[in-house]
């Protein structure tokens, strides 16, 4: 695109306002209103029953398993939970909507006024959620030549729709929000949230206004953002389109646009004028959804510490860097591993354990493509190894060797150190003896260092001592004694 100014230039004058609507599939075994099973990739229309097919006389029965999952998200986002929410029918005609209406929630949603703390840079930014509601998914229509095929396997799959306030200020923030939400639902174990399987889908409402302006501009709804890679691109492209349109004297029309990832641009799908009147009304087949104290008690009792809280704790209590903290909370199994290792450490080994987990452990796991949950080294073993390094029993370098062996064989680090005699040599007399021997054997280099001022040779002697001691020499004491022996 040839333009006098790139997006960064445009954004000096213009402020984007973004709101996201994210659909998350809840991981239940059966559908939200029928006993039909849920699976990805099954034979088309094999996961249906008379209700899913929208046959006359069928009635929805709410799957209680859905409620617990949705409530976890509601609580984790500090949402207000309605004691009585309602299902409503949302009407439109489409072949993959079997009843001619979708059972959703309208003016009485399950959750309202929550927020999600999103890690942006080293900080947490709070993004408000206007609502989280329950609904059933529609089926899937594929067009093959002149005919269309409808697969109802997905019809009736439980979804939560998470709607943010229109307060997201950039595509980068939107992307981070989506990643944070993705992490949270997996963290809470309520969804697999695999975007490629459509288990997490994002629509974005985008508008722009001049900086300093209070009123919101006309928004467009961007649909079909179904990959993390596209979020920023899709939103940036829409922001730029709107600004250029306005600057050229045009007006943004309220419309729904479909993002085409391959062409990297959006196309109008339907305008507001053509849009449906959904004729919402409370579904008379379903009583109000009641959330009472005992249900909430159960949810609260089993709610794990959230990623944002751990991100904060790792930095504040354990002194972990914000980058490392972010990596640790990127995956609940990893964070749980880390916490277990820290708990097994008798002192405060948080920072050092983070290093070992993120470098040695993740390195070894990645090399063999092993998930953290199947790590052959248990957290307490890693903690024990860190203790050996911290108390000087072995050096860090030997520690890596011991890690490698323990990871491979499962033998306890202390046993490996004992069996192989890997204890660090910290006794100055013993080290002096070795140093004396190494220096004595290399008189030319000693002179070049001491007299000739070749500083680089210091490492040569350290290496010699390490070689003599098979790496067991305490590096700090060795360095100290070497300086004395070489005279500078």
């Amino acid at each position, binding site marked *: 695109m040839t333009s006098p100014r790139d997006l960064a230039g445009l954004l000096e004058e213009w402020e984007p306002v973004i709101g996201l609507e994210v659909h998350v599939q809840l991981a239940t075994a059966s559908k939200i209103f029928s006993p039909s099973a849920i699976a990805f990739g099954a034979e088309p229309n094999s996961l249906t029953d008379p209700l899913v097919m929208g*046959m*006359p006389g069928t009635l929805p*029965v709410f799957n209680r398993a859905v409620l617990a999952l949705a409530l976890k998200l509601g609580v984790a986002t500090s949402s207000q939970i309605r004691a009585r929410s309602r299902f409503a029918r949302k009407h439109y005609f489409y072949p993959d909507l079997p009843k001619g*209406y979708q059972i959703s929630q309208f003016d009485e949603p399950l959750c309202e006024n929550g927020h999600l703390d999103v890690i942006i840079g080293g900080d947490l930014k709070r993004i408000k959620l206007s609502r989280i509601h329950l609904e059933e998914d529609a089926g899937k229509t594929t067009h093959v030549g002149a005919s269309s095929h409808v697969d109802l396997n997905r019809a009736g799959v439980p979804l939560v729709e998470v709607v943010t306030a229109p307060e997201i200020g950039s595509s980068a923030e939107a992307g981070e929000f989506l990643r944070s939400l993705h992490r949270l639902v997996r963290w809470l174990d309520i969804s697999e949230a695999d975007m490629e399987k459509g288990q997490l889908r994002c629509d974005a409402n985008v508008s722009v206004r001049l900086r300093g302006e209070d009123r919101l501009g006309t928004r467009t709804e961007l649909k079909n953002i179904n990959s993390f890679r596209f979020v920023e691109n899709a939103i940036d492209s829409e922001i730029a389109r709107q600004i250029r349109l306005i600057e050229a004297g045009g007006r943004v029309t309220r419309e729904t646009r479909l993002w085409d990832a391959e062409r990297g641009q959006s196309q109008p799908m339907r305008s507001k004028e053509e849009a449906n009147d959904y004729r919402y009304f409370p579904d008379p087949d379903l009583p109000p959804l009641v959330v009472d104290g005992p249900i909430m008690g159960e949810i609260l009792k089993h709610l794990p510490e959230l990623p944002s809280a751990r991100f904060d704790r790792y930095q504040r209590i354990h002194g972990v860097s914000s980058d490392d903290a972010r990596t640790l909370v990127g995956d609940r199994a990893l964070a749980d591993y880390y916490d277990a290792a820290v708990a097994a450490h008798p002192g405060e080994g948080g920072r050092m354990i983070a290093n070992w987990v993120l470098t040695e452990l993740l390195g070894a796991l990645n090399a063999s493509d092993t998930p953290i949950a199947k790590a052959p080294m248990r957290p307490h073993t890693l903690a024990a190894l860190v203790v050996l390094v911290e108390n000087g029993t072995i050096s860090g370098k030997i520690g890596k060797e011991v890690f490698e062996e323990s990871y491979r064989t499962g033998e306890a680090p202390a046993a490996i150190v004992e069996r192989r005699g890997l204890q660090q040599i910290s006794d100055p007399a013993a080290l002096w003896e070795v140093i004396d021997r190494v220096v004595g054997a290399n008189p030319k280099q000693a002179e070049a260092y001491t007299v000739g001022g070749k500083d680089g040779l210091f490492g040569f002697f350290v290496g010699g001592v390490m070689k003599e001691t098979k790496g067991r020499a305490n590096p700090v004491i060795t360095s100290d004694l070497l300086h004395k022996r070489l005279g500078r």
Partner: protein
Amino acid sequence: MTTQFWSVADTARRIAAGEITAAQIVDAMIARIRAVDDVIGAYLAVDEDGARAAAEEVDRQRAANAPLGPLAGVPIALKDVLVTRGLATTAASRILEGWIPPYDAHVVERLRAAGAIVLGKVNCDEFAMGSSTENSAYQPTRNPWDLSRVPGGSSGGSSAAVAAGLCAASLGTDTGGSIRQPAAFCGVVGLKPTYGRVSRWGVVAFASSLDQVGPLTRSVADAALMLQAIAGFDPRDSTSLDAAVPSYADAMTGDVRGLRVGLPQEYFEAMDDEIRAALRRTVAALVERGAELVDLSLPHTAHALPAYYLVAPAEASSNLARFDGVRYGLRVEAPDLLDMYARTRGAGFGPEVKRRIMIGSYALRSGYYDAYYKKAQQVRTLIKRDFDHAFQYCDVVLTPTTPTPAFAFGAKSTPMDMYLADVFTLSCNLAGLPGISVPCGLTGEGLPIGVQLLARPLDEVTLLRVGGVIEAAVGLGDRRPPGIGGAA
């Protein structure tokens, strides 16, 4: 042996005693349907093979001394809005023509389990919308008492079949009087249970918050037996009531001493003189047997009709959205999707159904919901409160079932005239109460007159008890419709 007017209890007892086989009963019924139903037009489909097979099964069980169900061998007819596995179910609409359901309605399962034999499916107004069965897309049904008159509706096939001895009993559905009004027109007993007493699973929905299945029978005792078979909690219907089911046969004590009978003034303002006289005789008979009269007012009665004609069409417009030509029933092919919908629904629905879809869609339009549907629901609450209040002073409310006896075909020339035929029966559905219509005499022209009784929620027992006393005192006795081989 003329079996056609045997009671439900009698039929079951004689089969159990070996006086007659179920196969003989079914053969006699089929022969009678062949002889008489050309004139009446009650049946849309007679399942001769299915009925014979079911009869043989009953006879086999009896021969094997296996325990027989309480309705073993009793031949019944089902209103064609009740879904039957393997047996076409049309709701008397073209749009469902050719649909063979893969499942049985809950009530059908229950009747089959009790040993009842399904003879076939009987006519009704299309999707149960109407008061004369003239809205059937397939055929008119004639009133056995006067072939120039309608049998009432929407369960007119049921009432006519029961009155003409074309089955021992029938199930109908009642959304605004569709069991009680045709029962009154045809001189039979029609019971609408409390909303939630009988599962709606497998009932082609008209208005979900009003629909209820109930029996049409030739006696109050038969109604009790049929209700016993179909009442009770069903987890597949979320509006089903999880309440104990009493013994309805035990309800018929014949004793009304001390019973407080409420007479709401609003229901005695406009009606035919002959109906007024019959009601007076009925009330006098109750007083003679020890009942007390209570003059009542149900002040919101006048609002029942408008409230009903918002709630019912609104829900119907939603419930009928599923008939889109995509998955089952009629499809009129067209080059594009929207056209296919329009042509299918245009050809598949009759004028009254279209009218109600239009009214309902209008009432649910965005911005109109509060003024119409919500307001109507508030009126329902007021009507329900009227009854709650009334039942502090009486045990049963007594009213005429209809303002006139059965009218001639084509007599109700405008929709409004037709709607007014239900003016006494609507409140019962809006309030979710149980109601019954019991014959209480004939007009000078020999047309049946019905008295309606309404009771507290789940108090069907009182309806049956009082209905039994009325039946004994002022009922039709052995009088049968003349001229159709009915005069025994």
